[in-house]
């Protein structure tokens, strides 16, 4: 499916970006939290929780490894 850009956004060529994030999950289902965090970096293509860690403050943090896409085909 092709992306539809916003009017003011310049089109960028398609790129893949590997990511590793730490995320402190909020209440409720995990998946929406993870996908929202990844969406700040691009369109989530593939991701997984690859570790569950405890922060210095004693909170649970999810280690997410992912690849996100940016840009469009054909530019």
């Amino acid at each position, binding site marked *: 499916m092709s992306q539809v850009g916003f009017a003011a956004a310049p089109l960028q060529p398609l790129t*893949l970006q590997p990511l*590793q994030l730490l995320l402190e999950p909020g209440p409720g*289902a995990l*998946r929406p939290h993870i996908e929202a965090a990844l969406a700040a970096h691009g369109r989530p*293509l593939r991701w997984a*929780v*690859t*570790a*569950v860690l405890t922060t210095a403050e004693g909170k649970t943090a999810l280690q997410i490894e992912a690849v996100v896409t940016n840009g469009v*085909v054909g530019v």
Partner: protein
Amino acid sequence: MPALLVIPTGIGCEQGGYAGDGLPVARLLAAASGCLITHPNVMNGASLYWSDARIQYVEGWALDRFAAAQLALRPVRQQRVGLLLDQAIEPELRSRHLQVADGCRAALGLEIGPVVTTDAPLGVTLARGGSGASWGSLVRPDALLRAGEQLRAAGATAIACVARFPDDAGSPELAAYRAGNGVDALAGAEAVISHLLSEHLGLPCAHAPALSPLPLDPSLDPRAAGEELGHTFLACVLVGLSRAPELLPWPASAVAMAGVDPALLRPEALGAVVAPAAALGGAAVLAAVERGVPLIAVDNPCVLAVTAAALGLEQAGATVLSARSYSEAAGLLLALREGLSPASLQRPFEPLR
């Protein structure tokens, strides 16, 4: 009862982390459930494959969407499998792949073609995440998707992609994998390629890496042997895709078909998801659990330690059934299929209070 089997790619699972060594598990769970939906990493053994009408071959991107109730699956008798070749593949290796495709046409009766070569080398790179899981990327994803668009426009209904992967014959990672105690270093990049194609085209897609042949290893682990029988990893992909189900957006376009096609696999019908107990943090498992689908967590060691307890799945209301082996998981699937409470099969059996 449709069931989902997930053995994530590139995390070194003892069962299913090598070359098609998840296939016996898939066959067993297909028999127990009557309908198993699983992904190429489970089914692909390079030159080795198994076709079973009870098994639906669904690439990871589409599998995630089915689990999230965004896609339905329509079983088909045959797909027309377009072949997408990376421009970086050397002429002799390219001929080997075309001969495998021809062999599958002649000996298995598969509908394969046309063939499209990318307009630039794809530039596959391999990487390892902080967890030890294999990942990877492409320098030219645009070239991959353009070639896929050409195949779809030419009538392909499924796409087998072959990208030139970096040869790593002397690497310690490959030596460990061939000895049966390593992670498949190629798997992460393969998944990225097939996810990208499936998402862009909405067609069943799968990937085989093109690599130079390896020198003989007399101590090769049997689980890795499937990849050393031939010149390519392509035959299993062509067989799997030849009957891969059609992907239908759900409920948008598939719901109208549900009444007229009883074979349509609707996401609501999913009765269980089976996954390694230490690798429960993938999109498909989390999506299925969110929808209330029972999870069978199987002891199948890997490099991860993302368990139901660590993720708090049971505290969040998920039904998690533990299995010490896939044989036990098959029994649990059968119980669910027959409407038996798994608790009734275990002792001690606690009274109601």
